[in-house]
């Protein structure tokens, strides 16, 4: 039995690696396509934060619902959204997840309970409360996960959402990605508290911190939070400490932080450190890792090819999907 247990775990650990590598490579491809002028608008890369989405979503069920912020590619990939459709969306193609009407900041796949990235900071938090009202009413055992950054904590909508979720005892898990910066302003210059999860106490909400650079720790922290929320005890705030390796968006000069700080965090790279751990524990080999990397490379190349070859939306569809007719 013990051997079998390890086998299952190993498979899952390799899947964690694959998903994180896929997110990293996908984001690199986004940077390339942005540089080529094929992706317009804003692109916010998830590089460095991969362990948060992958570890967290491994603790969820297909019936669960997710809303997130505009740095949403990693979340969508961790939820299993088709990378071809995602890349097509980024290139503004009719085959995209939103048929080219959403773009990078608004990835949706309702079939996977992935109910969107939102580009107004904190705007999805009240909606997640409402999703949870629906879940509670339907008694279908689903929970809602709402991902937001430390910047969103500065908005009133965060506080209103914690208030409502707690008052109404709703099945919503608030997953805070604390990457230390709201665009270019550091947390210490924008919030008078370092341990942000402690804000939950003001709303009588259960909360805990977790290391967002460690995919296994992320999963453990999330499993505990998910169990709490699914059992009907009410909302939960999980604060994942992490770091954004790239700028806020592709347009960011990163003039507000030191190279030394970046190096400090890059030593904690969630993918490289995880790989070292897997090899040290004899759970994988360099050769197996290479195989995963090759498969990831192929998937991302295929996604880019699919996106490039897809047609732009037909202008006659300008007026579709505004209202339900």
């Amino acid at each position, binding site marked *: 039995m013990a051997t079998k247990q390890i086998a299952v775990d190993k498979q899952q650990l390799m899947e964690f690696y694959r998903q994180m590598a896929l997110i990293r490579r996908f984001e690199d491809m986004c940077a390339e396509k942005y540089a080529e002028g094929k992706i317009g608008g804003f692109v916010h890369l998830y590089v460095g934060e991969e362990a948060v989405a992958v570890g967290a979503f491994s603790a969820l069920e297909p019936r669960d619902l997710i809303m997130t912020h505009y740095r949403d590619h990693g979340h969508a990939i961790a939820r299993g959204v088709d990378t071809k459709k995602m890349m097509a969306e980024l290139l503004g193609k009719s085959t995209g997840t939103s048929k080219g009407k959403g773009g990078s900041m608004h990835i949706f796949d309702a079939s996977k309970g992935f109910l969107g990235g939102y580009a107004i900071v904190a705007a999805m938090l009240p909606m997640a409360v409402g999703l949870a009202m629906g879940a509670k009413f339907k008694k279908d055992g689903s929970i809602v996960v709402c991902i937001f950054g430390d910047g969103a904590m500065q908005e009133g909508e965060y506080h209103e959402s914690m*208030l409502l979720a707690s008052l109404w005892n709703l099945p919503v898990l608030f997953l805070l990605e604390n990457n230390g910066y709201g665009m270019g302003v550091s947390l210490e210059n924008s919030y008078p508290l370092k341990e942000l999860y402690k804000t939950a106490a003001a709303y009588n909400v259960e909360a805990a911190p977790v290391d967002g650079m460690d995919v296994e720790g992320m999963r453990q922290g999330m499993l505990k939070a998910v169990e709490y929320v699914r059992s009907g005890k009410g909302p939960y705030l999980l604060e994942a400490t992490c770091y954004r390796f790239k700028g806020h968006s592709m347009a960011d000069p990163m003039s507000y932080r030191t190279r030394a700080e970046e190096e400090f965090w890059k030593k904690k790279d969630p993918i490289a450190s995880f790989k070292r751990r897997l090899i040290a524990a004899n759970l994988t080999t360099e050769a197996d890792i290479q195989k995963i990397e090759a498969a990831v490379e192929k998937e991302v190349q295929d996604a880019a090819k699919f996106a490039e070859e897809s047609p732009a939306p037909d202008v006659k569809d300008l007026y579709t999907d505004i209202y339900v007719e």
Partner: protein
Amino acid sequence: MPVITYRDAIHDALREALIKDDRVFIMGEDIGPYGGSYAVTKGFIDEFGPQRIIDTPIAESGFVGAGVGAAINGMRPIVEIMTINFSLLALDQIVNNAAKIRSMSGGQVKIPLIVRTVSGGGNQLAATHSQSLEHWYATVPGLKVVCPSTPYDIKGLFRASMKEENPILFVEHSLLYRSRGEVPEGDYTVPIGLSDVKRQGKDVTLVSYSRMVHVALSAAEKLAQEGIDCEVVDLRTLRPLDSNTVVKSVMKTNRAVLIEETWKSGGFMAEVASRIYEEAFDYLDGPVKRIAGKEVPLPYARNLELAAMPSEAEVLQAVHDLMGR
């Protein structure tokens, strides 16, 4: 046909919606034991209980956003914002979320949400409690904006709104709740996006909506005694706007006076005037006249408040000017 008040008509329509569909719930400030600021939801808490008649904390962005989320997750929420002035605290949820998610998701998501609120001045409630802001919302594609003027229309338009799967801002008027009118007992609806000729006439077209329809009708009665025959058009919905009914009327009368409660600059009737000029310019015997609120924050003192609001005397004057009398 029974004669009932505007308040009873919307009360009955809400009750009917709650009885028909258990996914319907109402949430808002003081709608429970208090019975609603305008007593519209009186008695509902006893009949339907606190699970479906939900008193919210004073967190407009939070509970309007929760309404959006609940609608996305299959519920039929009816959210009450005590007055349209407070809707400004929920502007992000209405404009950035409710109106846009269907498009941003490429049609994957529906938002069958009704936001009921109350507009208008005349109660000496001073500058922040007396505004008519529905025309701001009417500029936003993705929303529908409904402004009923009579008991018949409010009930019929509410039923039509319940059949929609789009976000609707349902704007009632604070001074109309006690107004009375005929309402049939049977099932009927009033289509959204259809203006209504409330009085037939051949000399001048008076265009308005909500309470100003009654000012127009009263002016028309007085003018009839002088031998001036006015047609009164009630827009009933601002988005989608049925300008055809207005244009047809103007083609018949060759004169138009547009009446609204909000400020003249950027008022909704600027849009209506523009449509008349675009589509019926050659039919006009004189300029389109506009009667609107004065360009001031509504003052408290009774005489100042009255001076700032559009009056029947101004309508009479405008019609006399157009008729050369």
